[in-house]
């Protein structure tokens, strides 16, 4: 295995009007890691996520996936390069079936054209069959196979989260970026999710995880970066980070009394 990290992002700056949402943020994720990105509310985790997946364009920064620079200017290019994501507020295609949702994920790895579809060529039919098969396999992999023909919006909350992961996996990502996958889950669902993420890692997909649930992050991740007010305040193993005074201060308020005013900003 090569020594270059799978994802190397450095010097990311992003400003929304008067708010410096990200200043000089960078991370390096090794292959096969589960990497945690944590921080208090409003720390810029989701903004950072949106920047590396191409939904927001950064003011500056360098981006490298698998040793190759990629431009986070268009989300579909990022997906093609090999980063797939889920959303903090689940964004499935609500009126499509669970299976179709995952089939959409195969779009970026398939090629049949409008003409092929109209003429229903052999290649198109074969590809369509392969898409369907792979989508069905992925539904089984995340454990929602029995709902394949159900509308996505009618699935239970935890199943929707899993379906979103299946849809992201359908793009054959090198890096799976999950924005608070455990949000709103009960303890049983969280345990099952943890098992799923460990399986995904075992199957060779690196995971970047934003999570609020500190217990989940500490138990699951290999490395953690902590953001606060758009800056990296700590990075290291979960054990180190937990004991970092800057992290404790960011989470618990510490001695500083200007937290409230900063929050207002």
């Amino acid at each position, binding site marked *: 295995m090569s020594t270059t990290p799978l994802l190397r992002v450095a010097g990311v700056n992003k400003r929304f009007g008067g708010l410096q949402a990200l200043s000089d943020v960078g991370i390096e994720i090794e292959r096969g890691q589960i990497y945690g990105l944590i921080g208090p509310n409003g720390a810029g985790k989701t903004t950072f996520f949106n920047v590396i997946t191409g*939904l927001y364009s950064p003011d500056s920064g360098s981006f490298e996936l698998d040793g190759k620079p990629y431009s986070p200017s268009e*989300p579909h290019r990022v*997906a093609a390069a090999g980063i797939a994501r889920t959303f903090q507020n689940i*964004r499935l295609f609500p009126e499509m079936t669970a299976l179709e949702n995952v089939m959409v994920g195969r779009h970026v790895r398939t090629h*049949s054209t409008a003409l092929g579809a109209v003429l229903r060529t052999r290649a198109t039919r074969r590809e369509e069959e392969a898409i369907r098969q792979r989508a069905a396999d992925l539904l089984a992999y995340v454990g929602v196979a029995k709902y394949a023909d159900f509308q996505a919006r009618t699935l239970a909350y935890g199943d929707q989260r899993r379906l979103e992961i299946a849809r992201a996996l359908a793009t054959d990502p090198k890096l799976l970026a999950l924005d608070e996958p455990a949000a709103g889950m009960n303890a049983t669902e969280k345990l099952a999710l943890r098992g799923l993420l460990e399986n995904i890692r075992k199957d060779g997909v690196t995971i970047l995880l934003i999570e609020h649930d500190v217990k989940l992050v500490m138990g699951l991740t290999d490395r953690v970066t902590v953001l606060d007010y758009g800056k990296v305040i700590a990075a290291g193993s979960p054990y180190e980070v937990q004991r970092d005074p800057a992290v404790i201060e960011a989470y618990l308020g510490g001695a500083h009394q200007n937290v409230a005013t900063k929050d207002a900003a």
Partner: protein
Amino acid sequence: MRLFFPQWRHSKAAAIVATFVVGACLVLLPFVASEIGNAWVRALAFAALYVMLALGLNIVVGFAGLLDLGYIAFYAVGAYMYALLASPHLTNNFPALAAAFPDGFHSSIWLVIPLGAALAAFFGVVLGAPVLKLRGDYLAIVTLGFGEIIRIFLLNLNQPVNLTNGPQGITLIDPVSILGVSLARPANFFGISLPSVYLYYYLFVLLAVVSVVISIRLQESRLGRAWMAIREDEVAAKAMGINTRNVKLLAFALGATFGGVAGAMFSAFQGFISPESFTLHESIIVLAMVVLGGIGHIPGVILGAVMLAMLPEFLRATAVPVQRALFGEVVVDAEVLRMMLYGLAMVLVMLYRPKGLWPAPEHGKQRPGTAENAPSASIV
């Protein structure tokens, strides 16, 4: 067929029988209609053209969810293209062309159909490119403007060089002729003499059937899924690797091709076209067909197109006699009545069947116990 009768999905025999019955009905329909009056056959031919138009618009509005109020522009593009390529207009106005083509332009249908489709697709991209970032109301306004721009160009392009003959329109357009058989004259098949309008009816029905097949295949393809994904959640679609720009442009272009071909056929059928046939009003009628029938659902769209296309003929036949019988005089003119009924039909459909007269069946199954379908009994 399985799209029209989902309950027959598993029976191949039933599907074949249904295809045969529907085919036979379509073949025999003009003979039945002509018993009432020959105008009805003409109306049926137009209905087939409107089915093509409505299906084309359905790709943009129904599949991809992009509201287009200028769709008739593509119809106009196809119609004028055919008119210019198959009438003496250009050779009359440009001596150089007349010298090059002493017999005048007479284009074959095999050239016109692909060319009409391609030209309309090009205009589809021309319209699509600047409106990619617009949605909803804004998109509607810009497309409406596009439709009007095309019409006003056609109206005014008689100067400085006379390209479209302005408001007078183009006359003496060749009829369609297939393999040497001109559709303008009655033709004999197996001892039955078929009048010209029958021939056009059959041609248009054939094209409409091809449009239906293309629509179904597109909807069930990788591209169809991408359109649906964009309609449902554009941001998520992008994040899943769909190049929304190209996929939307494809929707505009493919939708426009149906309009272009229908326009060329219209031009040949009428023998005369003018910008008057391509007003905003026509765009709205086609959109009404899509919405009334069942947006995004192919059988519904066909139903809407046939209903609204046949309505004027129906009213022409009934409005005057019925009013004579009821009031002893004609109170409301048939044309006025038509507009009133369009309006009334739209209001009623929006109130009572907001998804159209023949909407898509609930897509996929509903999970039991979800809030939206608490009293569900029809699961699995």
